[in-house]
């Protein structure tokens, strides 16, 4: 085994930062290209819309990153979001005077319950999360449909303060984006500076070694799914605030976008590496692409194909970087 020395760690971090800078560059290029065609694209309203549109995806991507780092995946986030969004609507219909904070907490709470179910099954039964979350994707969605029974919560039923929260700004930045930023910073700090955060990387890189070195793998994995559930719940509340009208199909198909954002953002699907910053950038990039395609008047049917191509490009690039880095590490030790 090669000895991991300080210069090599710095190299690894540089490569990762380079990867994230790459996404920023791609986004800047995209914004520029679109702005040339349509200068209004860089206007205040437009940028506000971009931030608003990506806020929910960023929150989901942060949670998913933590799950993927531990070599798992959570495909049920779309269903959790839909369930919580609908629950939030029902809550407000039943209690119009409810303070927004309480509604947010209730949504997060419901999300935690769902996430804990996922985490429990994965950690205790030691069953691949792909399958479990596939199953809970169906189960949560089915519960959502059954509860909704064809109803729809209309924007007119929601308290205006809540809806304002969904579209209002503070110093020009939408509240939703502020919430997403807070979540992002908190997660970023946690993963970098806290012991339990670093443990997640260890679990994803070498699960056997992690267990042997005393990390309570089961507990960490359970916790990570619960947190992801909580974030999906938060995203559900934000969704209800942003769109106002919620029915049982809310959030269908989001899981693909979240995984795309995470993968494009440089988080390795096999766990062990990546950062929430990259995932957030991935989410921003995907949202920008959606808007750009519309503005550039490119056939909107290309959008999904572009997302697919990006995923392939991203994992290809990551693989290339990983191989290059491994080669370099090996090379140095022989020098």
């Amino acid at each position: 085994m090669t000895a991991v020395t300080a210069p090599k760690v710095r190299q690894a971090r540089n490569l990762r930062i380079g990867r994230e800078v790459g996404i920023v560059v791609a986004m800047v290029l995209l914004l520029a290209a679109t702005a040339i065609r349509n200068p209004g694209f860089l206007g205040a309203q437009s940028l506000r819309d971009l931030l608003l549109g990506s806020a929910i995806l960023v929150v989901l991507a942060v949670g998913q990153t933590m799950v993927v780092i531990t070599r798992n995946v959570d495909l049920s986030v779309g269903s959790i979001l839909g369930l919580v969004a609908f629950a939030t609507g029902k809550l407000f219909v039943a209690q119009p005077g409810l303070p927004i904070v309480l509604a947010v907490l209730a949504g997060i709470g419901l999300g935690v319950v769902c996430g804990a179910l996922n985490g429990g099954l994965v950690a205790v039964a030691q069953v691949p999360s792909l399958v479990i979350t596939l199953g809970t994707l169906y189960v949560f969605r089915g519960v959502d449909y059954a509860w909704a029974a064809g109803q729809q919560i209309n924007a007119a039923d929601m308290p205006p303060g809540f809806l304002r929260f969904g579209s209002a700004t503070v110093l020009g930045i939408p509240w939703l984006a502020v919430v997403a930023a807070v979540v992002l910073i908190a997660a970023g700090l946690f993963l970098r500076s806290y012991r339990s955060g670093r443990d997640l990387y260890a679990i994803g890189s070498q699960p056997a070694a992690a267990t042997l070195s005393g990390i309570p793998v089961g507990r960490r994995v359970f916790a990570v799914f619960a947190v992801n559930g909580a974030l999906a719940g938060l995203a559900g509340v934000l969704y209800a605030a942003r769109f106002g009208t919620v029915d049982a199909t809310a959030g269908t198909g989001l899981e693909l976008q979240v995984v795309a954002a995470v993968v494009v953002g440089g988080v390795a699907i096999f766990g062990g590496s990546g950062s929430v910053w990259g995932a957030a950038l991935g989410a921003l990039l995907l949202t920008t692409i959606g808007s750009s395609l519309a503005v550039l008047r490119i056939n909107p049917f290309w959008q999904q194909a572009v997302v697919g191509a990006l995923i392939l490009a991203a994992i290809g690039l990551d693989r290339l970087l990983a191989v290059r880095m491994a080669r370099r590490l090996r090379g140095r030790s022989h020098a």
Partner: protein
Amino acid sequence: MRKPWEITIVAALLVFILVASISVDGFATGRNWGFLLLDLAPIALIALPMTLIVIAGEIDLSVASILGLSSAIMGQLWLAGLSLQLIVVLVPLIGALLGAVNGLFVTRFGLPSLAVTIGTLALYRGLAFVVLGDRAVADFPFGWTGGSIRTIPGTPIPWAVLLIAVLAGVFALVLHFTPIGRGLYAIGNNAEAAAYAGISVGRTKFWLYVVSGAVSALAGILWTLRYASARADNGTGLELQVVAAVLLGGVSIFGGRGTLAGVLAGVLLLGTVRNALQLADVSTDTLTVVTGVLLILSVVAPALTRLTPRLRKASP
């Protein structure tokens, strides 16, 4: 002791059919079985190569998108004036090509199949919309569309099912009775050891993806003819149903274990449960939940049986 899970599944299937025949009106009729088998046809078809892929330790989530893209291409070629005879030969070849792309990314570039096939899931579905857009092509000749659902005279079994049965036989033969098939188990158990044993892991996996693509395209043709409608969104979400059936049938997601018989039983079980519950007027929501629960059970149950001996050993 051999293959207890397969026995469980087949037993569950038979028990369920028995119970449903007695308690659900209209379940045990020839016509209903005809519908059921037709509904299951694409899932059963795609489950065949999927079984082999999962046994070899990989996965292919792009199958439904290949189905959709094939349907879109079929529609577009038909509009362009090509003959159906030519189309049904060309489209599986194109499917094979699409599968080859998957295979290339997984074997040549060494990328994880989960991520690759999620990427191609989006890419191919997107391309389907680019090819056919929002239209539906529906003027296929009745001889073909009616023929796709026509039953064998004197029985309620559609001809399409015969085709699938034959293919299933071929796959089962390859998997269980040829060195290639045994090699798949070896690869799934330990790819490195298999390589040392002389199995060319990369080439095998590559061809698995090619076959998966071709079969998915074939399923796309059947789907298009059956519903007499080529649309870009055909088959959306089907990959989850196929994976659910494969896992329910006892194939381990880790690779290295599973049988084709089990998978077919799994496909039938999921299909009959859905069919019977629908006949019994159970709501769509409940059906969705049941599918999810069955899927979770399919992996938790074997995991628990793995755990209990450990627990027994642990306690003094």
